[in-house]
């Protein structure tokens, strides 16, 4: 290892569990970049087939789910035929709702999120381009690309820069100053999970900064018009037009669509919160990252992201955000490659003594929930020692 003196000079050494010199950080960064270039050069027809098939499956699921929801209406008890009755109606309606929820989850996570990152731009297929993709979500794609691709991915876990730390609503680290508002945190987090799509929709509007008069009002008005238009169309589709097609059974279809949307919201909330908030994850101050090198940027992505263990289907449904670390290192590499990259990054981290935060879903989500609850109260009332212990378990 490097002499302790140079480790102390390293910009992160003061608060982070990394004892690397500037040179070592650079070497680490070069090795990470080499993995990127190797995978990028290997992309080919099989990857293209993967995303096209997934898109076809997703559209089939969406269409099929909606048809099954309509079909379920034939089993309503009021028809009085041999097959009608609540159990069969609920089973069929539930199946359709689940298919629609799965379609929305796939579109949101493994398809749109990754397409909007430019992961598939290399196909040069105008139908699968980050510049033109519009997703099945209340947030206009262009605004998402700003709040997510620029603010969150460049400034990952930098307090005051990365607005995804608590989404301006929740206190997720001891370094965030406490205020009485956070007493509502347990309730707010449940609301956010249920209506995550709508929170995301207004995320780039930066309501906090707007209220403080720090944001250009004309810009906010322009964004608000876009959000109204996009969210309006999304709402019209799921809660007016499709229900209208069911005529007198309007409410049944509206309810099924609402449940599908809520399921998607809760799922995406859970996966995304497991990505950056489990125990052991690190946050950074703007001073800490000033003038950081490429290697230090990679290091910050590693220290600020967490992986979740699981099977192949789980990874796909999470949009491969179960490989949040690899996603943050290589946001523009196709997500279907993350499972293959992960062991190499893990080995590299072991070699350089850099923590790699990976855990079971229970561990990652459990410690995230604990944080939401703990940071409801000011840090002076909680035990920082316990925090540190929880953090070390994650490595």
């Amino acid at each position: 290892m490097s002499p302790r003196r140079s480790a102390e000079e390293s910009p992160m050494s003061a608060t982070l569990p990394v004892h690397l010199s500037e040179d070592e950080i650079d070497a680490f960064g070069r090795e990470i970049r080499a993995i990127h270039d190797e995978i990028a050069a290997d992309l080919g027809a099989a990857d293209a087939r993967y995303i096209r098939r997934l898109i076809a499956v997703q559209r089939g699921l969406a269409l099929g789910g909606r048809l099954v929801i309509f079909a379920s209406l034939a089993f309503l008890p009021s028809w009085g035929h041999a097959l009608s009755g609540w159990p069969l109606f609920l089973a069929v309606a539930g199946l359709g709702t689940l298919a629609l929820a799965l379609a929305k989850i796939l579109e949101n996570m493994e398809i749109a999120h990754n397409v909007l990152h430019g992961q598939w731009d290399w196909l040069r297929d105008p139908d699968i381009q980050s510049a033109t993709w519009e997703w099945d979500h209340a947030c206009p794609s262009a605004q998402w690309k700003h709040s997510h691709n620029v603010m969150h991915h460049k400034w990952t876990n930098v307090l005051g820069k990365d607005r995804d730390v608590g989404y301006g609503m929740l206190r997720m680290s001891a370094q965030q100053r406490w205020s009485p508002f956070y007493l509502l945190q347990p309730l707010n987090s449940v609301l956010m999970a249920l209506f995550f799509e709508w929170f995301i929709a207004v995320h780039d509007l930066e309501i906090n900064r707007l209220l403080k008069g720090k944001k250009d009002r004309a810009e906010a008005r322009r964004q608000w018009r876009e959000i109204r238009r996009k969210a309006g169309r999304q709402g019209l589709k799921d809660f007016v037009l499709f229900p209208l097609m069911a005529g007198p059974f309007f409410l049944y279809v509206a309810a099924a669509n609402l449940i599908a949307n809520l399921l998607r919201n809760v799922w995406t909330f859970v996966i995304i919160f497991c990505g950056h908030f489990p125990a052991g994850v690190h946050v950074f101050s703007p001073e800490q990252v000033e003038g950081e090198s490429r290697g230090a940027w990679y290091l910050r992505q590693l220290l600020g992201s967490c992986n979740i263990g699981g099977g192949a289907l789980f990874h796909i449904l999470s949009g491969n955000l179960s490989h949040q670390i690899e996603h943050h290192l290589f946001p523009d590499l196709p997500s279907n490659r993350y499972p293959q990259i992960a062991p190499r990054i893990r080995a590299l981290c072991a070699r350089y003594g850099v923590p790699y935060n990976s855990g079971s879903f229970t561990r990652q989500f459990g410690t995230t929930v604990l944080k939401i609850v703990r940071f409801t109260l000011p840090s002076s009332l909680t035990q920082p020692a316990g925090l540190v212990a929880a953090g070390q378990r994650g490595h």
Partner: protein
Amino acid sequence: MHTATATDATHGRRRDWRTRVSGAARLVATPLRPSHYLELLNPLWATHALRARVERVWDETPDTRTLLLRAGRGWRPHRAGQFVSLGVPIDGVRHTRTYSISSSADGEPRHFTITVKAIDGGRVSPVLARRIQPGTYLPIGLPQGEFVLPADTRMRQLFITAGSGITPVMSMLRTLAQRDAMPDAVHLHYAPHAGAVIFAAELHQFAASYPRYRLRPQYTRQADGPRRHFTPQRLDQSCPDWRTREVWACGPPALLAAVEACWHAAGLGGQLHVERFTAALPPSTDAAGGMVGFALSQQRVAANGRTPLLEVAEAAGLTPAHGCRMGICHTCDVMLRSGCVRDLRNGALHSAGQRVQLCVCAAAGDVELAL
């Protein structure tokens, strides 16, 4: 007068009704279009992207193959002589090239053929000429080009073609034959030897059936015999009345340059129609820096091989959209219209026809950006 107005109103209402239905369908399919779901059933039913299905392939010569394509909804039948753009997937990446249509303009409205010669060292043509199988769907564009047979073909014609440059003229000849309107025409076709002539049997068939069509093959590489490249002297021998003919020329750049020089020298440039096809050059590997053209703002500035194009644009007073400035957010991606750029992170070269990341790419030679 009254009747006309009433009919117009009925038409208006009908159109209005249709517009409303398709508008409603689009609202229901948002953020996609109904066409995105239709294509799951049949890619040719899509209206958001035009595609063609490869129906049949056959070899014309050992290195040249014809593909019979069936176009999807939204196709417009071609005029004889026009070309079409075609997207060919190679290792997942779409490469777009243009090919002249070789079939008659009066055939099945949605069917057309292209005829592709596998170029040695080429990237796309060998795939089309050897690997694409029937049943493949390829993205296509609409037929384009002004190298088309005029409606009035009473004027005497001279066709000058070489190699696969025969394709647009073949479409013209097939159309004229089908219409039984073959004009007085001389056809100089350049090929290495008789075995390399694409459509040889059909051309000789035309010559046999239509005395007014005279085929004059010019072999440039045959072992025992003269090597007949185009020269004004040979033109005088093989077509003495060339000055009185409307001319259609398609072939490699060297032939077209010689033809153009000949007609311009005679002051007859107005009678000459030329169709160029150029092989896309593979990106050069050593150029660094060059002139950077910003097409939309009509500026040109010099740039070195180390400065990201985003900084070059900003120094030139432009304000392109940008985000992370480190190559992760893709906010600054812009279409590279011509030339090559180098990714400063790993030295990779990107060639024209794709969007490039301005913040991490520098000019590798002269480039033009859609900025």
